[in-house]
């Protein structure tokens, strides 16, 4: 019973611990069944296939943290749009330098995120409404840019991103960049202001926080991360992927919730989303490893997601009730 109490205490204080434990458990099971999974030579490939979901989950996090029903369901289409812009517009026109491609992608992502932020914070649309419309519009735009034939292409540095730069797996850069940006931002007042706004926007406003500015910044940051996710996706699949947008939207939000971030805002962390994404990725990987018929895999994925969130809720809520 003591172990259970300890676990509950841990989960109450650190909501991301559940996703961490789940990811660890799944990692152990994955490795036990397929020892090559953790082999050093395999890291780059594993991380590269994990990167798009990981960064998409982190991209969904700031909007949710900003509270007021905050959510960004346009992350999926946005990252596929960026992927398509690289393969269909930039690379074929000779713009292959990372010093051109990366800033362009980040700028598109941040700009679209900022538009979402303005819709929510200044024009006072409900976040679900604003980003649902953004989802539809960006999805259409992505299909338009992609054209009738699926474009494909890659260049040396995107291949390295999906592989490795010397001994360093390229995906460490795409997964690491959002974490580094977040760490840098947490040295500024922004992150504290974001949690304050997410916890209670009226109180934050009374305390002199510029709530609209913080929210716009949060959505822009999400868009910026979606830009990184788009680069990660592009380097992984090297082709347009307009049809994958809905899948990424939903998986990313599931990862955020699994990572202990409250969809009510103000509580949670980027790390939690990363761990939540890792859990989802490892669940899918496990289903591949044990050679479950692909026909079963969707059902099992759904069942495991439900099981994970319910177990997480039982452990975390019990703690919350005990404290209250």
């Amino acid at each position: 019973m003591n172990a259970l109490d300890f676990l509950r205490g841990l989960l109450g204080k650190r909501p991301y611990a559940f996703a961490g434990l789940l990811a660890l458990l799944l990692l152990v099971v994955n490795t036990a069944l397929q020892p090559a999974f953790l082999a050093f030579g395999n890291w780059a490939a594993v991380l590269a296939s994990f990167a798009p979901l990981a960064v998409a989950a982190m991209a969904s996090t700031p909007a949710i943290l900003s509270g007021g029903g905050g959510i960004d369901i346009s992350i999926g289409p946005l990252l596929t749009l960026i992927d398509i812009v690289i393969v269909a517009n930039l690379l074929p026109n000779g713009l292959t330098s990372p010093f051109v491609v990366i800033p362009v992608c980040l700028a598109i992502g941040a700009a679209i995120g900022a538009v979402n932020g303005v819709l929510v914070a200044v024009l006072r649309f409900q976040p679900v409404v604003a980003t649902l419309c953004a989802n539809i519009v960006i999805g259409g735009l992505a299909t338009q840019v992609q054209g009738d034939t699926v474009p494909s292409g890659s260049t040396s540095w995107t291949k390295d991103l999906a592989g490795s730069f010397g001994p360093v797996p390229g995906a460490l850069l795409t997964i690491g960049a959002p974490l580094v940006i977040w760490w840098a931002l947490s040295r500024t007042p922004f992150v504290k202001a974001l949690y304050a706004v997410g916890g209670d926007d009226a109180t934050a406003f009374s305390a002199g926080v510029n709530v609209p500015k913080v929210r716009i910044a949060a959505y822009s940051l999400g868009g910026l991360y979606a830009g990184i996710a788009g680069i990660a996706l592009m380097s992984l699949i090297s082709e347009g992927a307009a049809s994958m947008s809905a899948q990424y939207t939903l998986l990313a939000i599931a990862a955020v919730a699994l990572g202990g971030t409250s969809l009510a805002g103000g509580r949670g962390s980027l790390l939690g989303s990363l761990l939540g994404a890792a859990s989802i990725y490892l669940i899918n990987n496990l289903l591949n490893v044990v050679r479950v018929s692909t026909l079963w895999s969707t059902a099992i994925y759904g069942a495991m997601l439900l099981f994970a969130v319910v177990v997480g809720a039982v452990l975390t809520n019990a703690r919350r009730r005990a404290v209250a």
Partner: protein
Amino acid sequence: MTTDTAVADPTTGEGGVPLLHTLNEWQRRVPLLQLLALAALYVYGLSTIEGFGSQRVLYAILVNASLLGLAGAGQTIVVLVGGIDFSIAAFISAGNVIIAELCGTDHWSTGAAVAVALAVGVLGGLVNGVLSYRFKVEPLIVTLGVSALLSGLVLKWINGSATGVAPAWLGTLTAANGTTFGIGIPPVVVIWAVVAIVIGLVLTRTRAGRNLYLTGVNQSAARLALVRVNRTWIYAYVASAVLATCVGILLAGYSGSGNVTIGDPYLFQSLAAVIVGGTMFGGRGDYWRTVLGALVLSVVALLLSANQLSSAAQDMITGGLILVVVGLYGRERRLRDRI
């Protein structure tokens, strides 16, 4: 955030112009702007597209709106109670495939197949409602999980490809040239009208409906007012799942065969119909508004496809239009007014 004053447009709600103020009061009670948008779009269609006013086009719009409106009915109920349902698409596909397979491939009687489909709907809705209420898990995640579980099970059951054919009489229900008891209206439109009246009355005139609104506005307050919050919440999800399953059954007639992805477009469209109608999360709005929302979206869809735009352009215009329409009436209050 959950008071009804938030529906009023604060830019005019401060008593500056009496006429606008009065109009605002009306807008809160009656979906004036939604009606206006619908009329404007229809007149625009009449004046720019030849044959837009024909009965054939009108019935095409109505059949489309009926299916969307029925899918949006469950979403309306769930949104009113303060949740959200992302599993509607999966229930639509499940209902569709179950009917087509059981009737078409296994030669069950229609009644038995419908009963199975509805049972799946009830069961799935219970899982949605119980898990999200009992364990206080975000409904968004629970419904996503149930959605994956259900569509996975359906996919496994039919081994990856739907082969069934829907019973012929189902097709007559959704045919735009169908008749109801000899009257020249497609049956699905009549079904929608009956369902709309029933849901509208239940929401506004019965205790169950009132409980739904109370739970949506404030669960703790509703509990203190002796509302059985748990039942209300769970029944709302069951209703949503069952309605979605019925849409799937109707769609089997519409498309003629089973299709595991037939529900997918309804994932976001059902939510869009609710939003365009002006129903807000947690206790504001009613089903009539979603009916209008479904009609508006269907007229827009027909206008866009009649103008031969690419599906990409149609998406972009639809998204922008929803934003403009909702911007007219569905915005939040200013932060400084909420202190």
